[in-house]
């Protein structure tokens, strides 16, 4: 089982992610913003993290930086949810420590594919 943490302030997106990852291959935990993401991560851990960028309290960039500060998660793949219109955000996310990105709107099977691709 691959343990996936998704961080997104949009309920719709969280539901979409949960649906896309509803297969037996994954267990999904969800957080509603970066701060909450850090809390959930410390409680539940994760093999792969998927995070939105634009969120209240702590945005995706800040969240990734904070996760990478923790030695336990230095090797955890972090995928960023981006829209096709913000390529520069992709670069910023990678500078923060993101492993890769998923373009919104995503096809569920492609999402699964990308997660498999980064999860050992």
């Amino acid at each position, binding site marked *: 089982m691959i*343990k996936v943490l998704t961080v997104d*302030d*949009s*309920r*719709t*997106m*969280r*539901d*979409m992610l949960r*649906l896309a990852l509803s297969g037996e291959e994954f*267990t*999904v*935990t*969800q*957080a*509603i913003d970066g701060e*909450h993401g850090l809390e*959930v991560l410390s*409680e*539940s*851990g*994760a*093999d792969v993290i998927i995070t939105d960028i*634009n*969120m*209240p309290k702590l945005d995706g960039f800040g969240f990734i930086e904070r996760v*990478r500060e923790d*030695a*336990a*998660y*230095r*090797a*955890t*793949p*972090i995928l960023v949810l*981006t*829209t*096709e*219109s*913000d*390529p520069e955000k992709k670069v910023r996310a*990678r500078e923060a*420590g*993101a*492993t*890769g*990105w*998923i*373009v*919104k*709107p*995503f*096809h569920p099977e*492609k*999402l699964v*594919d*990308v997660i498999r*691709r*980064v999860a*050992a």
Partner: protein
Amino acid sequence: MDELEEIKITFFQECDELLGDLESGLLSIDAGATDPELINAVFRAVHSIKGGAGAFGLEALVRYAHVFETLLDNVRGGKTDLRSELVKALLRAADVLADHVAAAKQGGEGDAVSTAAMVEELEAWISGGPVPTAPAEEVNIEPNEDGIVFTPIKLSIPEVDEGPKEQAWTITFQPMDELYSKANEAGLLIREIERLGKIEVELLDDALPTFDSLDPETAHFAWKVRLRTEVQEERIREVFEFVEGHCSTTIVREAPAPTAIEPAAGPDIAAIIAAAQAGDAQAAANSAPSEEATAIAPEPPAASLPAAAVPALAESMSSRGAPPPAPEKGNQATIRVDPERIDKLIDLVGELVINQAMLAQRVSGHGFAASSDVGRGLDELEQLTRDIQDSVMAIRAQPVKSVFQRMPRLVREIAGQTGKQVRLVTEGEGTEVDKTVIERISEPITHMLRNAIDHGLETPEERIEAGKPAEGTVRLAALHRGGRIVIEVGDDGKGINRPRVRQLAIDRGLISADAQLTDEEVDNLIFLPGFSTAAKISDISGRGVGMDVVRKSVQGLGGRISISSKPGLGSMFTLSLPLTLAVLDGMVIDVAGQTLVVPLTAIVESLRPTPAEVKKVGAQGGVLAVRDAYVPLVDIGRVLGFQTVDTNPAEGVVLLVDSEVGGRAALVADSIHGQRQVVIKSLESNYQQVPGIAAATILGDGRVALILDVDALVAMRRRELPRADEPFIEAAE
């Protein structure tokens, strides 16, 4: 329901919330707030709507939201100045966005004309800001089939034949330290390449230092992969998309040499991948030497290195392994419950309240004193029942915010149509009221606001002349008072022109010319059917709806509406509603052996008339002299078919009621039991609709009692009068 459909419902709910945030954020900015988080929140709202819309393929909504979002992104990035005109434009853009969402909800698309105009305006702002900037995306980049965006890269390779025939490529890549620090893995890259075709992998370990200078967190290895595939170079480059800049990569197409590669068994790819994933040191240890010369991974000195000797590496590996099981924990802030379950719970609590009342009645019938153990126990039960009822009702309670947040737009529209300048101030948005009430207060609030702006506020010129600021203020407030919710709509306009209202009422035969009315009574004449103070029926206050209709709908909710006014200073509508439509304050009466409930809000007063006050009119009809007016008598028992002969009003009780269809009427009953709060049970869902009956309830003694629909009852009575051709609903205008 299909899960995706359920998410779509969530999406539209979320859209409503986001549109509310968007508007309130913009309004705060408009009011002068400068908190940068506000514009971020505004941006996020549009961004989230766009993101969700994309997931459901709502293309028109996505396209529009994208332009809107681009401008907001420029604003928050400081590229476009947030001037007052821009905030106004953004507010209008938010209205168009709301239209798009509403249209998408109905399966359609937003209005093309208004959208095109708004897009043009937004684009002008995008390009016309102080620092002209292009929209965020210069190239229309489509995600490839992996859902990965691939930014086009200029390639310096010669044009090649695009045919799908198999080609051989040599891919050399050398990860940098950063590659591993972003949790990417060389082994995963090799595995990805393997998915494209047949590969041979060669480990380049020239840079591997000796054991004593080995840094386990540094990248030492490079790989050379020979790939035979039919895919284009672009697909190969995609493999390296995540590691671009963190890995020096060369991809070279080999000259066609059909005999160069034998389809011999490749090296043990799995072993190499496993090795690469485990890190450089482990890679060296695990890569078994292969027969193929090209894939040999010589055994490095690190082969015998125990994992414990490289703690950082071990730590990194363990985090990749199975983590300790932890309880799944989602967002615990809220839980979602099917509203039907809550409705069911409320019904059950209603039953409990009835049951408790029945029990209390039976126990007192057996002569237990209130101070006895049983009596005290019942008191506690009653208290608990009430607490449960309040708590359960609180589950379904919602803040009036959802209604209030739709009003700024309405105010903008009316202001635009009337040429008035209006500032809307809202208070008490967090005031909670039952969902059943929330759903029905929007309309009266809308009418009150229309009335306040159209009739209450003066034009800017008139205001300046009167020494007031050009911009009028309309205040919309909600508060709890005496177990009810009170909605106030006030304006700082000219107030009610009492002489004119009085004259109009006389002209229209609503009052006699010599009627002595207090100021308050004059003000409330505007609620009478057939009264309209608008000099001309405007688009706004017109629409065939006068304040009388507003009052009717408010009374339908068990509410009351009144107006107070100060000449030159403004008017205030006060609307008071029950907190729920699940219970009702009623008067329990007896009619022809039946127990009935009359909603208290409809009753003006109850009387015991003297025979002299009752006048017969025709065979069945009659009127009652109440002070200096005659009020038609309505025999409840006969109208509902309980009896064929009228009860003599002088022997029974008369309830004076205000009905909207026929004005004041006198309901005749046999006797009155008293006032009681009853739980409303729908008759339609349990039986069927019955004319003259609004609903049913169960009384404390267990009997079912019907709740009267006073308006319908009076209308039924009018229909059976000889002059049946007379329209029984008087013109509202």
